[in-house]
């Protein structure tokens, strides 16, 4: 564990030594936020020569631990901070994201309420015809441990992961979508951003109406959609001036177009 830290430190020193003004900022964490921050970083680097920003994904838990230990200046966390995390870290909300249920385009089901979702995910309902679909066995896709989409979704359904009886466990949002495409009886959940992007690109999926609200960007923004999460950047007590400046940029309206490009919802 110590060796990578030392290596990283050595790399930092090396790059700092080269040019006087060269500064590098390491940002790690949520794989949901990473592409957004990476795009913003590219734009920021273009207008701030001498600043190098390195963005690595690896999940919200990594964002928390790296920001706490100082391995990263900024951590990306796609959920609200837990109480015990608030002692060391401060969260800055960049944008909002919604988690929506996805099924195959050919599945006639249009909406599912909270109780139906609970019954589907605990296998009390095992056939699509019981929720208004075809006579076919439901294939339940769940996320792997540690994913913030999993936490957000289970928090909404008020379920413990041990209650969920899944047929398929996957890691990435796109893997959920591909699972739905490869088996039309699958139900899964992903971030609305990913789902709308894929739907727009012609992937044969459908975003399910949940709690009578159509999953759209607007519904996430006005707070009417029930399954949402904040996209946060977290900092600890010691943030370098360079990282602070980049954070200010991320919190400005200047990156709204980038947020929208990634199908998240700007809040400023």
């Amino acid at each position, binding site marked *: 564990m110590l060796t990578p830290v030392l290596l990283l430190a050595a790399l930092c020193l090396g790059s700092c030594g080269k040019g006087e003004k060269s500064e590098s900022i390491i940002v790690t964490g949520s794989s949901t936020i990473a592409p957004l921050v990476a795009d913003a970083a590219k734009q920021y680097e273009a207008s701030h020569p001498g600043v190098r920003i390195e963005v690595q994904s690896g999940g919200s838990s990594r964002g928390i631990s790296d920001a706490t230990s100082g391995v990263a200046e900024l951590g990306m966390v796609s959920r609200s901070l837990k109480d015990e995390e608030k002692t060391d870290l401060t969260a800055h909300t960049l944008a909002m994201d919604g988690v929506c249920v996805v099924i195959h385009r050919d599945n006639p089901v249009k909406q599912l309420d909270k109780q139906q979702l609970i019954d589907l995910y605990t296998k009390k309902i095992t056939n699509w015809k019981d929720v208004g679909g075809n006579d076919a066995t439901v294939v339940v896709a769940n996320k792997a441990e540690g994913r913030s989409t999993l936490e957000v979704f289970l928090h909404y359904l008020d379920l413990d992961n041990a209650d969920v009886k899944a047929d398929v*466990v996957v890691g990435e949002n796109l893997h959920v979508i591909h699972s739905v495409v490869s088996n039309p009886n699958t139900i899964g959940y992903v971030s609305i951003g990913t789902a709308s992007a894929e739907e727009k690109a012609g992937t044969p999926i459908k975003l399910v109406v949940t709690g009578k609200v159509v999953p759209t960007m607007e519904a996430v923004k006005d707070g009417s959609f029930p399954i949402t999460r904040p996209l946060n950047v977290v900092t600890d007590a010691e943030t370098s001036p360079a990282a602070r400046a980049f954070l200010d940029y991320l919190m400005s309206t200047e990156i709204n177009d980038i947020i929208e490009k990634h199908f998240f919802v700007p809040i400023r």
Partner: protein
Amino acid sequence: MTSSRNTSLSRSVDRVTGGILGLIAIVSGGLVLVILWHLISGAWPAIEAGRLGLFFTDGKWQPGSERDPQFGVVPMLAGSVLVTLLAVALALPVGLASAVFHRFYAPPALERWHRRMMELLIGVPAVVFGFWGLMVVVPAIVRFAPDSPGQSLLAGGIVLALMILPLIALTSQAALQAVPAAQLQAAAGLGLGRASTILSIALPAARGGITGGVLLGLARAIGETMAVVLVCGNIPQIPQSLLDPIRPITSTIALEMGYATASHKALLFCAALVLVLFCALMVGWLSFRKSASDSGTGGA
């Protein structure tokens, strides 16, 4: 005079070359020990806390559950072993058949083309195999068994079989090529047909090489991660049928390592350690069998 100087020169060159090669060999062998040490030190917190027992007695793997955390590694070890055996069972007959075809039946032009295709297959990245499996093999399984999830032991076995097929085919080809022509001519001289020459002379003589290919295939299959994580369904359970999803140890590590915190991470290291030890046992046993059978054929 000159000759003695030459001898001493070549001796010192020998010594230097031997030293350098020895050093390289020690470093490459030592790397395995470094990795093992890293695994053991990563797993140590769990071993120290006495959780290794739970590892084999817990029935389920749900480390993130707050109400009922369980850490059973047995279903995942079963998943790793079953998917690997299935892959070898599928790939071995096809690989052998293609090696025999290549050595004894194929016209030279086709032979070269076939060899190139096999070599190309080795170079295809695992994630491409996995994606192909998810988009082609899984829907095919769903068409055949509409009530199953599709992502399953069977899907994993098929995808892995395709990945290790070229390893088995190419090493078997090389082994068949190495069978002395004199033996085959002698068989022909005794009036044996091509089929019986292959079955009773060539294949037994090439057995050592073929076992080596199977060993490579086994090791590749049990360690494969990217492809299996996409097609196996990743449910940690002992499968009741070929259509049930499974979760090999490698998939668990890939899915959870980036997200795991302290004690969970130590358990993942333990799981990796179990896999490495299992692999070592398997390779050890097979090489023992191989050397036993080699000396057996030598004696006969």
